[in-house]
């Protein structure tokens, strides 16, 4: 990054190649599988990284710095999103997560997870995803969010617990539906 700061802007491509996937994955999960938006947001992150390169002082890790930018880009996106449309109305019928076609149960679980993630608040979804980023420590997440490491863990716990409750409800509905389908099929075959 010091080369980029010293004017060798092209060196950012090394960092882009290293970080594009984790940042894309971060946005993919926080936008609940919106590929197009995730790619737009990754683009914005690197645009800002070039424009504000001097804000990287080298005191923290590059991972923390770039994800701080991603966090702010995400916040801006969420703000705009709230202004323009009702998020609840955007819940789509299709799913965006890559499923292993051969594993039906896993595929259904991931679909339920995607739906459950959509039911969380933006901040709850983000804290769960941040906690899963490789190389990003809780202390660094705490610095990014202006809170303590302990508070970050507590917020992750609460968000995962809420997600788990929603997920279980969705899964129960699915099992009930599949059960009734099974009954209908059995009745029909009789």
């Amino acid at each position: 990054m010091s080369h980029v700061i010293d004017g060798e802007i092209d060196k950012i491509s090394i960092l882009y190649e290293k970080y594009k996937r984790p940042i894309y994955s971060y946005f993919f999960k926080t936008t609940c599988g919106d590929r197009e938006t995730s790619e737009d947001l990754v683009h914005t992150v690197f645009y800002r990284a070039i424009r504000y390169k001097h804000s990287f002082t080298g005191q923290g890790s590059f991972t923390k710095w770039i994800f701080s930018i991603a966090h702010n880009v995400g916040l801006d996106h969420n703000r705009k999103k709230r202004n323009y449309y009702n998020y609840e109305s955007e819940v789509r019928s299709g799913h965006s997560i890559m499923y292993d076609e051969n594993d039906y149960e896993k595929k259904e679980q991931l679909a339920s997870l995607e739906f459950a993630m959509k039911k969380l608040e933006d901040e709850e979804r983000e804290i769960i995803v941040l906690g899963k980023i490789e190389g990003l420590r809780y202390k660094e997440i705490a610095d990014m969010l202006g809170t303590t490491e302990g508070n970050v863990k507590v917020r992750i716990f609460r968000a995962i617990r809420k997600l788990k409750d929603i997920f279980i409800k969705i899964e129960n509905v699915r099992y009930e539906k599949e059960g009734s389908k099974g009954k209908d099929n059995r009745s029909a075959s009789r």
Partner: protein
Amino acid sequence: MKKKDPKEKIIDLLQGNLTPEEAREVISGLEKDGIDAGELESLRRISHLIESVNPGEPSSDMDRRFYEMLANEENEALAAEKSLIGKRWFQASSFNVGVRIAAGIALFLLGWFTASWSGQKSNTDREMADVSNKLTDLKQTLVLTMMQQNSSLERIKAVNMLNEFDSADERIIGSLLGALNHDENDNVRLLSLEALIRYSSNPAVREGLVTSIANQSSPMIQLRLAEVMVALNERKAAPEFQKVLMNSGLNYSVRNKIKEAVTVLL
């Protein structure tokens, strides 16, 4: 010491950040915290499920957009640099110090040829050498004057001109070390360092380079000094670098480079 919230410990447990002993302790205290083993298992499952989400690969369109944006940014930066250099050159070229030096040398040569032509003295090798020395001396004096100019562009030119001399006397070494330690412009300091490397067989230069380590704050120069000291195997630099490492605000890349240098030099 503040007692940890049990929820913090559960996150550590789910992330696998606890030792087996700590994990056992957390699990045995769970019910007291209102979380039964069944719920813990559900939390673990959902946590693993999140990790198993595969976002797939971003499209090649994302790469294309990034590289287009990068090319634009580079072009803009290049255009801005060219415009700045052009502006400075135009300002400086009206009657800059370089022109004055050239005029001084030309006048000196004209005087010498006129004297020779008039046949006042015979041309001898000794006289030729004398003139050549005087010319070099004059050039050095004028270049050293350029080093004192307010314009960093003039100082950069001066350092480049100093590189043209086959040898460097105390005045030149002193001037380059002065620039390396005190010039406000990073490029002048870096060029001075590069010029000094040519004279690194001189003990005074090596000592000056070691002393200058403590005066540098630009990551670019700190990195170069670390490389140079390793290349010269200058062991006296190790304690100076160790002092630099004590600076908590040190650039991450510089820190790593200096650590490497210290390991080699010690």
